[in-house]
């Protein structure tokens, strides 16, 4: 009896210890307040909630790298200047394992514990979850997802960072139809995002006189081999294939399609990046000939890009993609917007000065050309340039 009781008590004790550990751990820092003073310095906390563990961890880390790198640069230059007072930027990152509900509770925690005026999150599920309460809790969502519904919600405290994916429909369709033909097979990833993309592309493709000859999706979390589904798609003799998902498995789809004799073009969903796919395919664009997708950042013509790529490589040991690049430029825009608003803790004021932030952006951080901010929908309006593979090289295709 005594032994049993002891065991029970010790288990309770252990459980309690875990609880304590959970409470105190995780929160990577605890400086006082969003704009408080810590050690004689003014600090502004910037929140981040994204996948930092699990299968999407590498994606989360790349987005976070962008925010962190910008924050460091801002601090090195003396911090955010609000009417002569300097504020240091501190990034508080929490892991949400790619889950909307975790993103929601992370944001709550960031607001309550760290008083973050801005919370970055890199997935549409998390963004939709935050849009439910961000006006009540008064914080800006740094929304990294190209899902057009984020802008359609017209949330007055959302800033949508990447180009909306519906902007890609026209250039992708025009290019592949002219070069290869009108028959397309749909084989995107089986995620909600992939399905939404497919639903947006299908009517546009058909409106331009094309035909969708095969429509299915690949579940990268379940399928070990794509030969079966690609064989079925090729049976319909498509001229073009619509594919996408994480870059690496998408590259394997390309490889297997070529092995099965497909010679047409690929429309590549914006989630996958041509340069990352190239790395899986023996560092050559040969198999990707005739693909069109997001222009890899390293191939961009913006004057600030080469320096940025070099700095990023020194820091993280790889070429930056748009995950890092767009979050990087967004963080710089927010910092400039805070200066223009004259406040680090009034989200509504900051949101009103996003355009001023864009205008005040120093030349060396302009790795993307973003001329304007759509105040109503809350999204950056990019000068969209997409990349296509011709003769083993990336060429620029203007979106208009």
């Amino acid at each position, binding site marked *: 009896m005594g032994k049993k009781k002891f065991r029970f008590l010790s288990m309770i004790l252990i459980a309690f210890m875990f609880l304590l550990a959970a409470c105190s751990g995780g929160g990577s820092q605890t400086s006082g307040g969003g704009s408080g003073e810590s050690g004689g310095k003014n600090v502004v906390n910037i929140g981040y909630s994204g996948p930092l*563990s*699990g*299968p*999407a*961890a*590498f994606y989360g*880390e790349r987005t976070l790298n962008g925010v962190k790198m910008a924050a460091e640069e801002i601090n090195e230059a003396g911090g955010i200047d609000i009417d002569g007072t300097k504020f240091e930027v501190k990034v508080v990152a929490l892991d949400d394992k790619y889950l909307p509900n975790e993103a929601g509770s992370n944001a709550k925690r960031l607001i309550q514990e760290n008083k973050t005026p801005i919370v970055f999150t890199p997935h549409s599920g998390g963004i939709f979850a935050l849009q439910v309460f961000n006006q009540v809790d008064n914080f800006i969502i740094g929304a990294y997802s190209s899902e057009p519904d984020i802008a359609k919600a017209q949330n007055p405290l959302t800033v949508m960072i990447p180009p909306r994916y519906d902007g890609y429909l026209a250039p992708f369709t025009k290019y592949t139809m002219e070069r290869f033909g009108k028959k397309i097979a749909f084989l995107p990833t089986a995620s909600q995002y992939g399905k939404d993309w497919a639903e947006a592309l299908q009517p546009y493709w058909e409106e331009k006189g094309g035909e969708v000859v095969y429509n*299915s*999706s690949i579940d990268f*979390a*379940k*399928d*070990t*081999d794509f*030969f*079966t*589904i690609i*064989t*079925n798609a090729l*049976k319909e003799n498509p001229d073009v294939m619509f594919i996408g998902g*994480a870059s*690496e*498995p998408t590259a*394997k789809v390309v490889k*297997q399609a070529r*092995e*099965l*004799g497909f010679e047409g073009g690929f429309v590549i969903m914006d989630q996958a990046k041509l340069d990352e796919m190239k*790395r*899986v395919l*023996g560092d050559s664009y040969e198999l990707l000939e005739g693909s069109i997708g997001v222009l890899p950042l390293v191939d961009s013509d913006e004057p600030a890009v080469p320096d940025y790529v070099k700095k990023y490589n020194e820091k993280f040991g790889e070429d930056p993609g748009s995950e890092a690049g767009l979050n990087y430029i967004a963080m710089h825009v927010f910092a400039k917007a805070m200066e223009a608003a004259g406040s680090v803790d009034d989200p509504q004021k900051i949101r009103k000065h996003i355009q001023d932030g864009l205008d005040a952006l120093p030349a060396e951080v302009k790795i993307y050309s973003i001329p304007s901010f759509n105040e109503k929908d809350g999204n950056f309006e990019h000068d969209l340039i997409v990349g296509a593979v011709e003769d083993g090289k990336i060429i620029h295709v203007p979106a208009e």
Partner: protein
Amino acid sequence: MDVLIQQLFNGLTLGSVYSLVALGLTLVYGILHIPNFAHGALYMVGGYITLTMMTQAGLNYWIAIVVSCLVVGGLAVLMERLVFHPLRHAPAIHDKIAAIGIMLFLEALVQFIWGAEYQTMVSPYGQVVNVAGVTLTMQRLLIIVATVVVMIILYIFLKKTFTGATIIAMSQNRDGANLVGINTNRVAMLTFLVSGALAAIAVSLSAPINLVFPGMGHLVLTKAFVIIILGGMGSIPGAIVGGYILGFTEALGATYISNDYKDVIAFVILVLILTIKPNGLFAAKGGH
């Protein structure tokens, strides 16, 4: 017609990998009497070991596979010694929880060592072979042939050697095997070794057509469960036949019925087989 032959070939490739994974799972079932949830994690670790041997140590593909078999087999033996052996008198639920724990531990460990990103294993057999309108790649042919070879070796080992017979004896009746003088500890370790090696072979053969990443074990583990239930828990012919049945069902179901419902089709077949033979196709005799 070409499509049918192509899909039969695709099904054969899929089935081969499934069978190899299911074989390891079914062998260990004879010892643990529960499906080893950590088997998928062993499969994944095998992928990383083979990959590291090829890229870091610069070993030949085949030597890397041998190293991987030894390492993963050793890891499986370690699992048996440190976790399952001390639990042998505990209720079955403890084994299940321990197996899930090992799975989570190995996944976190791999992510810690190698990182979460996708990696590519480049095999020296990337050539594409076209035979009468059907596309074969060398790697896929290799999967099919190597699987058959492994199965034959395993069959000879289990049926024609004394050591193999002790494994069968123990899976039929642990106490009985002990009574006739079989060293059950040794046999348990041996079984885990073989099971780990089979997982390493399966992953080393199939990884070049896909990618190596921490979650890759889940791709095959759920399928392997379906297979050993369909084939009969603990049955070796059941795992082989079940693997091919599932492979062909997926390939042909996706072609002639619907790609979106190919998993449903596999489960309908499972239900049908279990309705007719509730213990699976080849229910092990002297059951548990």
